[in-house]
């Protein structure tokens, strides 16, 4: 295994052996540990001293089901703290097959505004890098650029890239990966890492793993046994099986449920229920597609080896594809949160965000704050589309919104900024779903809906009886357990959605642990694997503390403490002491 260091200051690279400390790590565990070990927490995120790390999950590149997650890490220009953002993409297994444990991008070219691409190939017995000029792609729609890149390098490559939002240094810019049809639709969207990549003069990483030797197993038999158990659980469970909840309705299956729960943030978090929810639901997407295409269309995989296959496609009346895919979070951010109930308009906005490499959540939150500030009316889809275009074109107002939710609220003097640590909230109202509120507030990543997943009640309950309804103290305990579990899962390369099945099917959970042990040669129990996730949180937390973040940053926005949220008419009332217990007892 190698650590590949790429210095963008002079466009040089070196292959290093993987240090002992990093050998059992992958994905988020490795990106966060490297950033903690090598990056000055006080550095400017867009300056020469930040680094950008790519790492595939530990199980990526194997036949393990739904294991193609690629993590990117760095200091976030959005939160000022550590950031890991991951995506399902063929890039992950390809990097793993080349036995590159991590790609560490360092330095910064002296030439401002100059861009290169890194072409990473397999050279007989090791990876090799060439640096190619990328000026011809600067400022271009990423869909156009990716089509050109696939024309130039062939269909077998994988691409990580940044678009205009990254070039402009936006805090709401993500990094795009190619989907199964070579389009730039799979995003490590959150935290502004697209701007970090662009700040290094790096426009694309083009990866060709042809000839690479593939991954190594410590105990292949154990690994295969575990993968078989996990595959069986995913194939059996109602949420993850073929034509199950996610394969039929996609993540937008949550729209009607969260709306009925009174927890669907609407019009910049003014209410928890949206009158137009059913029109933008997963059920509506499925039925509209059936009507428009004349047949039932089930969802597809975002990346090789995914058995859950939850990515939808939105088709227009004339049968043409508008975009693939619209996730629940994007649907909500650019829909209900902006008071917009027109699915086709939402799909169009998602496509624009992809083209410019904008994070859909942060973009929707920023537009909603602008609407809340009186710049335009809630529900104005054309106005929202125009604002995304202004972001993509680098116009002054677009640059303010490109700064994210908090920057937009600051520019308009609006105290109603739904952000934690500067990161805009996703699609679950923390006043109505208090458990996720604790995780939003305390996550090392800022408000993050992917920070707190659970895989086994006995682990979350520390071996005892679980009582999620008990006093507030249990919310801190559970949030801590969920965050540890998630840090572990984010390191495996698995999609977090495997947790839905393995929470209910113990053999699936056992299978995942066996896969890990078979791959790494470890003897983790479930508890030990989760404790290892806790170690990842510790390095992330240490980085954030050194960067200047304090417990005061582990709070929900003030307006949520005094504004009641209809229909439950609730406020954010989990005490500061409970928030502090999450990391106080890590």
């Amino acid at each position, binding site marked *: 295994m190698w650590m590949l260091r790429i210095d963008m200051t002079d466009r040089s690279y070196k292959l290093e052996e993987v240090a002992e400390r990093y050998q059992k790590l992958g994905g988020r565990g490795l990106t966060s540990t490297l950033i903690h070990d090598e990056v000055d927490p006080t550095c400017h995120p867009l300056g020469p001293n930040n680094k950008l790390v790519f790492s595939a999950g530990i199980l990526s590149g194997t036949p393990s089901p739904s294991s193609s997650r690629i993590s990117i890490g760095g200091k976030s220009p959005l939160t000022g703290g550590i950031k890991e953002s991951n995506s399902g993409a063929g890039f992950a297994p390809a990097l793993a097959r080349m036995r590159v444990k991590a790609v560490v991008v360092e330095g910064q070219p002296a030439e401002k505004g100059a861009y290169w691409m890194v072409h990473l190939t397999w050279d007989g017995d090791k990876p090799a890098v060439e640096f190619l000029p990328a000026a011809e792609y600067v400022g271009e729609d990423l869909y156009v650029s990716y089509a050109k890149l696939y024309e130039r390098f062939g269909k077998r490559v994988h691409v990580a890239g940044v678009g205009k939002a990254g070039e402009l240094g936006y805090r709401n810019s993500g990094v795009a990966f190619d989907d199964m049809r070579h389009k730039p639709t799979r995003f490590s969207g959150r935290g502004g890492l697209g701007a970090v990549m662009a700040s290094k003069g790096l426009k694309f990483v083009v990866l060709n793993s042809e000839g690479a030797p593939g991954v190594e197993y410590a105990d292949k038999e154990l690994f295969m046994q575990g993968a078989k158990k996990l595959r069986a659980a995913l194939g059996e469970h109602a949420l993850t099986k073929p034509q199950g909840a996610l394969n*039929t309705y996609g993540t937008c299956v949550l729209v*009607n*449920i969260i709306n009925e729960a009174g927890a669907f943030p609407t019009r910049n978090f003014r209410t928890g229920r949206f009158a137009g929810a*059913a029109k933008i639901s997963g059920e509506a997407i*499925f039925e509209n597609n059936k009507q428009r295409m004349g047949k039932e269309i089930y969802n597809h995989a975002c990346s090789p080896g995914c058995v859950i296959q939850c990515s939808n496609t939105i088709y227009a009346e004339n049968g043409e594809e508008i975009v693939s895919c619209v996730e629940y979070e994007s649907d909500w951010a650019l829909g209900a949160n902006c008071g917009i109930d027109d699915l086709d308009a939402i799909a169009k906005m998602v496509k624009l965000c992809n083209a410019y490499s904008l994070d859909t959540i942060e973009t929707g939150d920023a537009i909603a704050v602008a609407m809340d500030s009186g710049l335009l009316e809630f529900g104005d889809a054309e106005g929202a589309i125009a604002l995304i275009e202004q972001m993509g074109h680098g116009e002054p107002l677009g640059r303010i919104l490109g700064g994210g939710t908090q920057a937009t609220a600051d520019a308009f003097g609006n105290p109603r900024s739904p952000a934690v640590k500067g990161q805009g909230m996703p699609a679950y109202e923390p006043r109505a*779903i208090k458990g996720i509120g604790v995780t939003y507030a305390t996550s090392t990543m800022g408000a993050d809906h992917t920070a707190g997943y659970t895989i086994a009640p006995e682990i979350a309950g520390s071996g005892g009886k679980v009582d999620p309804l008990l006093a507030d103290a249990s*919310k801190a305990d559970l949030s801590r357990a969920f965050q540890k579990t998630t840090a572990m899962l984010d390191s495996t390369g698995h999609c977090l959605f495997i947790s839905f099945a393995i929470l*209910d099917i113990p053999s699936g959970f056992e299978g995942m642990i066996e896969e890990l042990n078979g791959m790494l040669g470890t003897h983790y129990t479930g508890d030990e694997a989760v404790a290892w996730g806790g170690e990842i949180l510790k390095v992330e937390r240490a980085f954030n503390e050194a960067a200047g973040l304090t417990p005061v940053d582990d709070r929900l926005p003030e307006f949520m403490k005094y504004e009641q949220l209809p229909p439950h008419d609730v406020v954010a009332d989990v005490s500061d002491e409970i928030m502090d217990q999450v990391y106080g007892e890590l």
Partner: protein
Amino acid sequence: MHIEVWLYGPLARYGGSEGKIAALVQAELPAQSTVADLLASLELPTEERGITFINGDLSAMPGLQPDLGRILNDGDRIAFSHLKSMWPFQYRHAAALTGEMQGAVQARADGGMRSRFDEEQLSPGE
């Protein structure tokens, strides 16, 4: 009494909608009617419904339906979703539940920490 009933996805047909997106039914029921009475009036078999809400409080999930005997009140909003809907635990932790649902999950050793409750017998791969 008057009950506002939302039926989602394939359940919309029990509300007279040919589409399978959603239906809204304004139901008139005798006082003291229960959820079971409402389901009977809609001719909706209880095993076909999944996640259920009464006034935004979770009252039932697939495999766990402690709400059948609940007496409805005039003006209640009740929403029935289909069996392919989902609400993973981490996204419902400490959300509002009906009293009956609170009792039902507290009675379980896992405290209700499951994705669903109708998968208990599954043991794939064996």
